Each structure stands twice: as C-alpha cells, then as structure tokens.
C-alpha cells in the first residue's frame, strides 16, 4: 500500500488538527474563503466534503450544509476546480460517498468505476479519501485505484467495530484511521466518550495515526482527547455550525471566515496542548 507523503508529514511533528467543511457551502467563493481560513487557523490536514445528495452518514448539521452546497451548484467537476484554485498548503482529504466516486468515469464518457475519480483527485492535489458508506468489504477496487495514484484511503472505525472487521480494515487503511468517538452520526456534542479511550486501545497495534472525530467542538475537548492518546482531532459540525450561522444571518463572508479561523486556532491549540499534557502512560498505548 502506498502511503501519501504529505499526510505522513502532517502527523510527523505530533498530533494533527483536521477540520472538515462541505465544499460549496453556502456558495463557491465563500467556501473557498472558509477553507483558507481553516488553514490560517492552524489546520494540519483539511477534509473537504464533496456533497452527495443522500448523505446517510451525516448528522443534520452537515446534511444541511450539503443541501446548501448542492443548491449552490456544487458538482464533482466544480469540486476539483475548487481544489485547484485553493490557496492552502496543507494536505487535503476528500470526504464523499461511494456513488460519486464510482460514477465519475461515466460522467467523463468512460465506464463506471473508481479509477477516473481517483486519478483526477490526484491530479488536483488531493492526498486521501474518506468514504463513509464504503466498508472495507467493498473497498478493494477503490484501494487499488488509490494505490495506483498515490492517495491514502482512510477508514472509519466505530466503537462497535471489532474482530474480523477490524482486521479487514487494518489491512486496507492508509494515511490515518478515523476513530469515531461514539455511536451516532456526525454532530457537535459536548461529551467526550470514554468509548474513545477504549477504541484507541483496540487500535494500539495499528501503525497508522489515529485521528478522533464525531462531536468534538472545543479546544478543551481536543486537548483531553489528544491527552488520552489520539494522534489527531477531526472537527466538522462545530465548524459547519459557524458557516450555517453566517449563511442564515447573511453576514459578510470575511466575518464568518474570521470566526472560523478563530475556532480553528482554538482547536489547533487544544490539540498541541493535549500533546504537551500527554502522560507517559498514555503514550505507551
């Protein structure tokens, strides 16, 4: 399995802060400003959501973001264009649903299958993919395409993932593993489940970084999770909430961008702080 260097580098200096936004929410230009604000705020990697019409794995916050983005005209082509135009220098991971990956070749006049999408993603400088509706069992064609084009394929491990299924993922994952902090779908929550700790323990043998997501909304939470052993922090809904507020209050894009940057900074700092607080004990996991 190829490992994407940019992603590996992002984890090299300690735990990574990985924010998520839906691309095109609420429109193309604003979205670009927001992603760039995240980078300024200290993102180590950015997960870019390519909106799919049936986002079954998302909480309502992100679902609504996706609706806004689709209504704003976002498509896979526009998404790639967006990435090309983006002025950030952190690795980018595309988060989307399998049907968009599978059909992309067809939209280019070719056959369906993941290769065309991955090829184009690599071309525009995407470093990895997260596909929430693609379990390891169905992932081989995509894993192959990623290998061919040097992309990482990130899997999500749920609190309930165990045994054989864990094995199957471990064999296929690269870049980092997305550790789902608790059951449920995405959405900002204030509790930091101790399922997280148990999940991190179960993954202790894996040699990829473990990034924890689902429901993280403050620097303080980020710090505690990293202190508990996470190699990264993934934050989506808490940021999308800021975009949603900006969209509904129609305030200037710059103001929303500034708020996003501030929030990113809080989370990035939390991440660093957590690393500093980490007990030798935890390090050993």
């Amino acid at each position, binding site marked *: 399995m190829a490992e994407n260097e940019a992603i590996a580098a992002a984890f090299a200096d300690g735990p990574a802060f990985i924010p998520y936004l839906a691309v095109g929410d609420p429109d193309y230009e604003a979205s670009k400003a927001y992603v760039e604000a995240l980078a300024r705020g200290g993102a180590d990697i950015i997960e870019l959501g390519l909106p799919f019409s049936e986002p079954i794995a998302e909480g309502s916050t992100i*679902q609504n973001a996706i609706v806004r983005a689709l209504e704003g005209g976002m498509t896979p082509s526009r998404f790639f264009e967006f990435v090309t135009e983006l002025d950030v220098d952190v690795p980018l991971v595309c988060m989307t649903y399998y049907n968009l990956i599978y*059909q992309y070749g067809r939209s280019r006049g070719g056959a369906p299958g993941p290769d065309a999408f991955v090829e184009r993603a690599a071309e525009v400088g995407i470093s990895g993919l997260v596909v929430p509706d693609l379990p390891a069992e169905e992932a081989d064609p995509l894993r192959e395409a990623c290998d061919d084009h040097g992309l990482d394929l990130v899997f*999500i491990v749920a609190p309930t993932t165990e045994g054989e299924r864990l094995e199957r993922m471990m064999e296929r994952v690269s870049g980092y593993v997305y550790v789902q902090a608790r059951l449920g779908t995405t959405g900002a929550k204030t509790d930091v489940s101790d399922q997280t700790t148990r999940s991190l323990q179960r993954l202790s043998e894996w040699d990829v970084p473990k990034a924890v997501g689902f429901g993280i909304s403050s620097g303080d939470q980020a710090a505690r999770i990293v202190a508990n052993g996470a190699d990264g922090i993934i934050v989506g809904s808490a940021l999308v909430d800021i975009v949603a507020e900006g969209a509904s209050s129609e305030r200037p894009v710059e103001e929303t961008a500034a708020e996003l940057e501030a929030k990113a900074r809080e989370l990035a700092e939390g991440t660093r702080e957590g690393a500093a607080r980490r007990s030798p004990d935890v390090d050993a996991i």
Partner: protein
Amino acid sequence: MSTDGKFGDYGGQYVPEALMPAIGELDDAYQRYVLNNEDGFMDEFRERLADFGGRPTPLQRADRLSERYDLDVYLKREDLLHGGAHKLNNALGQVLLAKYMGKERIIAETGAGQHGTATAMAAAHLDMPCTIYMGERDINRQRPNVFRMKLNGSDVKPVTAGRGTLKEAISETMRDWAATVESTHYVIGSVVGPHPFPAMVRDFQAVISEEARRQAQEKIGGLPDSVIACAGGGSNTMGTFANFVDDDGAERSSADDPSGDEPRGRVDLYAVEAGGSSLAVDEEAGVAPNSASLSTGEEGVLHGARTKLLQDSFGQIMESHSISSGLDYAGVGPELAHLVDTDRVTPVAVDDDVALEGFHRLSQTEGIIPALETAHAFGYLEEHHAELSGSVIVNVSGRGDKDLQSAIEETDARDVPNAPDMSMFAEGI
C-alpha cells in the same frame, strides 16, 4: 443468492461503519430465525400473518376484466391485508424478528406513510415501542397516515432537514440506528438497503406468491402465463414473483430440480414502474419526472446497496416523481435489478395518465378501488393486454382509500376517459 448478499453485481452492504455490526447481527438472526425457523420463528410469523393480518388473501378471478381483455385475469388481493396493503407482511416479520433478537425498540422511515402505518400496527400488536421518522413535508401531505400511526401508539418524528421528504427521513432513521444499534431494530420498508434487508424483506413478502402459486393450481389448474406487479422499491413485486422465478421454462437437469417429474413451465414476470409524466430526465435540475429506475436507471450505490438508480451523470440521485407516492423512489431492490439484467423480469413503465385510467377501470368494473401504486399494474393491463395470452395474475398491492384526495386532484387535472363525473369534488373531499 450467494451468502454475501449479492445478486450478480448488485446488493452488498454500503453502510457507515457504525452500522456494520448491526447488519451483521441482523444477518445472523435472518439466517437462524427466517431461513432455519429457529425457535419456531417462521411458524409464529405465519400464524400471526393469518390471525392478525388476514392471510391467506384470495386469488380472485376478475370476471369483467377477463371478458374485457379476453384473458383469464386473476387478482391477488393484498389490498385485503390488515392495513390495506402488502406492507404488513414485511413489517410484521421484522418487528417479530426484532423481538426474537431481544431488541427493545423499533424505528422506521416512511414517505407516503404506508410502511409507517404497517410498522406502527405491527409494533402495537407486538407491544414494541416504535418511532417513525417522516419528512415534515410528507407529514403535511399525508396527515391521515400520520394520525393512524399516532393512534397505534407510535411516536412520529418530523424530519426538518433538507426538503423534508423520504430521503431525509431515511438519513434520520439511519442516524438514530447508528446511535442505538444495540437496543434498536430498523424496519426497512422495501427490498432495498444493505444485505440482509433485500433478501429478508423478499422472504417475508414471498408469502404472496407462495399462496398465489398454490391458489393458481386450484383455480387455473396450473401455472399462470404471466404475473404482473407494480414496482416502487420492489417489495410487492419480489413477493409476487419469488415463487415463480424458477418457472423460467428452462430445461433442468434432475440435479437442479430433484422433484423432476413436474417440468417447469414458463411464467412471464412484468414489473410495472411509474412512468410519471415522461421517461425523459432533466439532468440540469436533477429531476426525473418518473420513478422508472429498472427501465431507465443506471447502476450505482444508494442507501446501502448497489442497484439501478435514477441519477445524473455524476452520480447525484435525482428527484423522482410519480402520481403515486409509494412508487416515488429513485432506487429499486438489487435482486429485481439483477432479474432484469438476466432477462427473467421484464420492466415496463406506465405513465400517470394510464395509471389513473387503470385506477378508474378497476374501481368501476370490479368494485375494488386500488392504491395508485397498484393502479399502474392495471394501466399496463389495459394498454398491453393484446400482448398477453392465457392467464394473468395481477397483484393488487393495496387499496385506494389513502389516495382518494390525490385521485380527485389528479383526475381533475387531466382528461381521464373513464372517470366518473366528479364536479362535486372540485374542492376536494
């Protein structure tokens, strides 16, 4: 069917990781209780279907239609099932299975409300707390069904995200399930979703064709020449076809068919989809003015399974349309997609106008007011009866009481040759 839940290339389990253990557990329960009748599950299911559901439903010769079409038309009367549609076969099976699995709670999504009402009934009958997710817009369009669910003691949760229709309700139900998998079973409403749902729902619905095949032996004295059923997600379709699929007219080695002596006849299977106002699509707007995924859809992945879909060239799912809300779905069961690709099932589409004509035809000539979904099957019969011969079984998947208001509006909006004078209903009922 192979054990990995694939039908050819279709099917599979494309779901968020958090749900994988739940569908694994469900698959295990499916194998044990449904396929192997462990603890007498299937016996209890059949008994409750009889006593609570009203099975067997009749296979009725439609004398007047038979004369009209110069065919032997038989009606499989799922409209007489408790709740007014075939939906209860599946809902009762799944709620009972949830009980056997030790689950304490049921959730379900519903669009038009038919699956929701069936699930609410089954949950009340089996004393299972039940939450039904329904888009806010659908709630406003289907208030009688919402009321029925509440009367049965279910909690109906409005889904306000997105456009407030079926797809948002599905997402919301998945979301609930993802957070509560340990205590909760998600009752999917058709032969869609990840394995084992398509196979399991088919098996629960297969009682339709099990009865119909036996009844056909008694009444027709053999197999029918054709079987017709409407297809939305495809649960009534698969239920009506299941026990006729092997009647494909193919020669069989005695190894394939140990009973040997009864040579398999050929039963033609027609899945009638909603042709809506047109089979053309508007890619720009992301809208298909039909729900004909078998006839016009392309392979893709939706709601946990690979199947035929109405999608744009990028793979975004299109908004589907039909006069009948129960057929209004952009996907279709993966097994049905496979049976179409292997030429075992003929997909046909009937547009809104023809479906309405079928609605009035059955109401007037047989004294049975069908659901608008079901009406598509009769629209097909009216238009294409000359291409059929011998005996035909049509599945009456549901009754039309739920559709009276729509029938008025839709009849009013067009020129239906056989509609009664409805001037007094111009303002609705």
